[in-house]
């Protein structure tokens, strides 16, 4: 009896000991900063003079600020375009790869290369290719098409940046979908064939339900990631031309640089609320299968 209590106690203290580093780090580097940031979002604060409490003023200012509104629209555009196109392309090529055994390893490797490199590398390479006399316009000229200043024309700058994000995520999406497709039991397809199902019916009733958790996973990761877009914009366009590629996080960093720490913190909390709501919705969608 005593021995078993002693053993449990030993297990307990070992448990606390093992999670202590993680707990301390989480409190110091995450919980405290988060609370501080929440407090700053309610103050006028420039990082030098003590913060002055102003209630929800920063939130009202941010939400009615045309630059933030533009950043918000751009971010939504980024998420909708990127997530509308990228995963579909990934799923499509995963289906083709699932079929095509001979060169699969080679294709998979080449698709995955951009995923392994940082967004900064990807953005730098595409900036070179988008240049006025760069390779993309040279290819266009080869087909007698007019060149275009992709990154300096406000109407094409944002789509051009989105293309790089799709390009970078495509390989990851393909490989993840391919793994999911291969995990769908072959017997389901055989049973469907015996029931006389055609290719479309098989896709609709066997493949899609089978890979549904993976679809949710890809969208959760992708949407959260694209909501935080910053790196490519920093390298390729610096938010311009005329705010055309300003994103929410770019707006946040810009305010921080201009010492509007109250405003930057309010932007951070608006982002937090958005992502929390989205994650909740996505989790519910993921649960509601069956």
């Amino acid at each position, binding site marked *: 009896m005593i021995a078993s209590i002693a053993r449990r106690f030993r297990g307990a203290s*070992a*448990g606390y000991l093992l999670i202590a580093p*993680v707990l301390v780090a989480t409190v110091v580097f995450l919980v*405290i900063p988060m609370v501080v940031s929440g407090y700053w979002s309610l103050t006028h604060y420039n990082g030098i003079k003590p913060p002055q409490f102003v209630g929800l003023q920063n939130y009202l200012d941010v939400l009615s600020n045309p630059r933030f509104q533009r950043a918000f629209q751009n971010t939504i555009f980024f998420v909708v375009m990127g997530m509308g196109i990228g995963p579909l392309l990934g799923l499509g090529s995963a289906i083709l790869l699932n079929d095509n055994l001979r060169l699969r390893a080679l294709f998979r490797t*080449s698709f*995955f290369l951009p995923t392994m490199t940082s967004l900064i590398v990807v*953005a*730098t390479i595409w900036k070179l290719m988008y240049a006025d006399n760069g390779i993309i316009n040279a290819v266009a000229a080869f087909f007698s098409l007019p060149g275009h200043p992709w990154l300096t024309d406000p109407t094409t700058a944002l789509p051009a940046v989105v293309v790089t994000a799709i390009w970078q995520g495509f390989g990851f999406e393909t490989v993840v979908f391919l793994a999911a497709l291969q995990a769908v039991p072959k017997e389901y397809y055989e049973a469907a064939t015996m029931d006389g199902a055609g290719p479309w019916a098989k896709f609709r009733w066997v493949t899609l339900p089978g890979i549904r958790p993976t679809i949710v996973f890809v969208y959760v990761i992708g949407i959260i990631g694209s909501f935080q877009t910053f790196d490519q914009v920093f390298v390729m366009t610096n938010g311009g031309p005329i705010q055309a590629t300003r994103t929410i996080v770019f707006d946040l960093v810009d305010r921080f640089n201009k010492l509007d720490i109250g405003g930057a913190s309010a932007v951070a909390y608006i982002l937090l609320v958005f992502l929390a709501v989205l994650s909740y919705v996505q989790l519910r969608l993921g649960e509601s299968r069956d």
Partner: protein
Amino acid sequence: MRSRPRNRIAKSGFLLAASLLMVVPFLWALSTSFKLPGDVFAYPPRFLPDPFTTGNYLNVTTLIPFPRYFINSTIVTGTIVILNVIFGTAAAYAFAKLRFPGRDAIFFLLLLTLMVPFQVNLIPLYKMMVELHKAIPPLGADTYFGLIAPSAVSVFGIFLMRGFLRSIPDEILESARIDGASELRVLRSIVFPLAVPGMATLAIFTFLGAWNDFLWPLVVTNSDTMRTLPLGLALLARRNTSDWGTTMAGTIVTAAPMIIVFLLMQRRFIEGLTAGAVKDGG
């Protein structure tokens, strides 16, 4: 599923085109990195640099301290990976296999923190590091400590490892305890060896994230000698819009280590990265 030959050729053609689209930009960057400034935008474009120059690589190793960036990235990423694997596995073991009051509540609270985007903590963390640096100069902003500390543990890693460690049978652990092994001994001699495949997955995730991280190094460093590779490259790409050869040499130097590691350990990487995505629902 088997399809007709003509179909197969169309599909292979599409996949080949797609993989060219993935690989060609890297080859173009590689080619540009060996070109003279005047040849970068030559029309028609040339894939093979003529004349061939290694001057751009000389620039990024002498004029711009890419070797230093590389060393910084290696130190920072290496330390972050080691700390994450050790602390993450230890904590995951406690959450998966030990009983103590509050265990599940604490784990749930930790999971909630996954919802918080890093940008929320960015500015307070920066201020914290600035103050720390004033108090203790070797720590805080613009030091390795400042670059590493906020990423030293990750809740995602614990979550990943917990799922993995739950599959270790309790009997193995119990018999070790009966033999008189302490919990730390059990962790070191039994859990760690059994957890190696899971730790590899965690290490890969952490490595990718840390090596490619940008926003935090951008904010927390201000001297050139503390910059990491992506940061050094980003600042070069923004500043230097005319000398593309040098910028591409920097790009290749930044991307190459990652690509080489990937090509050597491809199966591990792909299995590791897809494991979480597929197994969860499967």
